[in-house]
């Protein structure tokens, strides 16, 4: 069997050492690996899933809820993303699937699929707007909001954890592209 270190390597790890452009008010950083589960089901099942996970999922559109390192993102009217930072995906998935045995729903482990980038700084929204057409003002995109959207040619999950901190969750194959896109954008702004 492959060791977990071989099975899971962050697509952004080469970016750490590659020379990033100099002084900018906005910083890019690689978010720690996390267990990620995509849940699809009706209200009754999502409430049961949230109760087991320890985070009450938002039923309001485009909002996420977080408790410690665990968070639940609203993706669609019957779709949520469960994320547990620095936890073992196999354990989290096992626990959730046992808890949801009696429910009609779907739960898929997608931990390997995407990597996270934090975009932080007073001009973070401006940097993201180089490739993302959403209105990222605090009024239209408040803290606690999350949504799938586009950045340049890539599709990603964008969330705002603080006024000046955005988290980007992007599929592995697009991750280097998005990193370089943001790096170039922050050197311009």
């Amino acid at each position, binding site marked *: 069997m492959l060791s977990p270190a071989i099975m899971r390597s962050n697509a952004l790890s080469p970016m750490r050492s590659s020379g990033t452009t100099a002084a900018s008010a906005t910083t890019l950083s690689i978010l720690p690996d996390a267990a990620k589960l995509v849940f699809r089901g009706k209200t009754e099942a999502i409430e049961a899933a949230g109760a087991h996970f320890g985070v009450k999922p938002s039923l309001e559109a485009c909002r996420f809820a977080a408790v410690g390192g665990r968070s639940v993102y609203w993706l669609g009217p019957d*779709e949520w993303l469960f994320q547990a930072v620095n936890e073992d995906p196999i354990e989290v998935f096992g626990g959730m699937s046992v808890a949801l045995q009696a429910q009609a729903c779907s739960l898929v482990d997608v931990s390997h699929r995407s990597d996270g980038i934090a975009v932080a700084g007073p001009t973070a929204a401006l940097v993201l707007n180089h490739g993302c057409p959403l209105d990222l003002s605090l009024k239209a995109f408040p803290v606690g909001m999350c949504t799938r959207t586009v950045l340049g040619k890539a599709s990603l999950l964008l969330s705002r954890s603080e006024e000046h901190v955005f988290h980007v969750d992007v599929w592995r194959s697009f991750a280097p592209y998005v990193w370089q896109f943001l790096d170039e954008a922050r050197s311009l702004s």
Partner: protein
Amino acid sequence: MLLINCPYCGPRPEAEFANGGQAHIARPADPMSLTDDEWAAYLYMRDNTKGLHHERWRHANGCGRFFNASRDTTTDVIKRTYRMGERPEAEHQGAKP
């Protein structure tokens, strides 16, 4: 850029959406009883409306859901969007809703 009002997420930029063709085309209940011409008409023939057109859209880079939109093909103005399973409003119903 056009803003399209997703019934689930609210107004979003056009780049997040994918068009899904004409809406409200029901699959024939008993395809075996149809002639080849009737089946071909169901599969391929679509309205080419000048004016109000009801079509499907998918919020592909957003909530991922399909919904319907009533769009004026002469001005490209989307008059209304509504969820799957709903009918277009009476005043918006064209010759063929």
